[in-house]
């Protein structure tokens, strides 16, 4: 654990919160995904994202369980820095697949910002995460390769994309102090610098988009929460709220 500036903390928390909620969202498909392999895939991918979140929190608070739990589960909603794309609960598996692809396409670019971080633990984590993330992208791409060639499925995925893009674009919104974190070498550039490369990936995957007409939903530097956030956090804390000392 190193001494981190407030700006570095904000940037790391934003990434950790995104990973934490993305992981939780994925795990909610266990048992209800359309076929067994998808139960397994979302369980494994969710497990990785939760692991990344825990390791990012560890960079901030050290490796003991209690402070990690405190920062992961018991902050006020105002203190989270997640984006709405991972906060919203999706009822449709097609939407979930598209979100999985959109998020992981951005996540790869986001880890690259930490590859030469002045915080060694983050640079190490970027290497480890990438070795795991390529499985996630292979999973999402394999399904999209198959489904985008079927008329009914392609139509549903394209309309999911239309619903999700305003939230997905808001993913690139920075946190307060992000430019300071860049100056300190914690990240090589603001997350927003990845947006153009990500849009190109979206275009290559789903076809041309009218980007000028798609507005990112504003989140005031990730300080406002989606309407689904509170119930999501309740579900995450369900066991701990019954017994704070619960372990398993």
């Amino acid at each position, binding site marked *: 654990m190193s001494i981190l500036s407030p700006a570095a903390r904000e940037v790391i928390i934003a990434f950790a919160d995104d990973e934490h909620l993305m992981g939780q969202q994925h795990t909610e498909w266990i048992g209800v995904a359309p076929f067994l392999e998808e139960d397994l*895939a979302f369980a494994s991918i969710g*497990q*990785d994202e939760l692991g990344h979140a825990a390791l990012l929190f560890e960079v901030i608070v050290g490796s003991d369980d209690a402070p990690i739990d405190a920062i992961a589960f018991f902050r006020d909603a105002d203190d989270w820095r997640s984006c709405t794309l991972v906060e919203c609960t999706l009822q449709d598996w097609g939407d979930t697949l598209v979100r999985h692809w959109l998020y992981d396409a951005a996540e790869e670019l986001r880890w690259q910002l930490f590859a030469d971080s002045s915080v060694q633990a983050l640079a190490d984590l970027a290497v480890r*995460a990438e070795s795991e993330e390529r499985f996630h992208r292979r999973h999402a791409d394999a399904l999209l390769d198959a489904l985008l060639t079927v008329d009914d499925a392609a139509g549903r995925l394209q309309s999911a994309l239309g619903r999700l893009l305003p939230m997905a674009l808001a993913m690139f919104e920075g946190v307060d102090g992000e430019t300071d974190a860049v100056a300190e070498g914690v990240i090589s550039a603001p997350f927003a610098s990845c947006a153009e490369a990500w849009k190109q990936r979206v275009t290559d995957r789903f076809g041309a988009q009218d980007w000028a007409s798609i507005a990112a939903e504003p989140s005031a530097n990730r300080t406002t929460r989606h309407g689904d956030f509170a119930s999501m956090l309740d579900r995450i804390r369900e066991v701990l709220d019954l017994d704070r000392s619960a372990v398993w």
Partner: protein
Amino acid sequence: MSQNPELELAVHQAVASVDDPEYPGVSIVDLGLLEAIEIDENGTIAIGLVPTFSGCPALAVIADDVTEAVEAVPGVLDVAVTWLTSPAWTVERISHDARQQLAAEFTVAVELGRRAPECPRCGAPTVEQSLFGPSRCRSVHRCSSCQETVEVMRS
């Protein structure tokens, strides 16, 4: 090598006595999880382990088992087990003996390089059925010849 090679050897053997919870009888050392043992002059032991995947739910169990095994070594005062972020674990860290054991006892193959993993039963190439399997470090394949379902460890 430390100042106290006997103690280091005993600690190494203690770590090696810990089995992977998923594969009873297969040592975590043979699976490539042990990265470093450091012993200071007071007999305090620091053990660095490498997780197969960062979200593996077995990590806490393995760390507890290692702590317990090493604490039982005479001359050890204190043990600290740390999960290292670097280097990343790869299947190349699995020993030859452990690969044989995984194949014979668990019908688990190890994916090395780009070659299709071989069926532990008949040696024919296997074909991937599902990228993700019963745990994060395994995918599910099927033998192209005898049709046996084969779990494949990969990284």
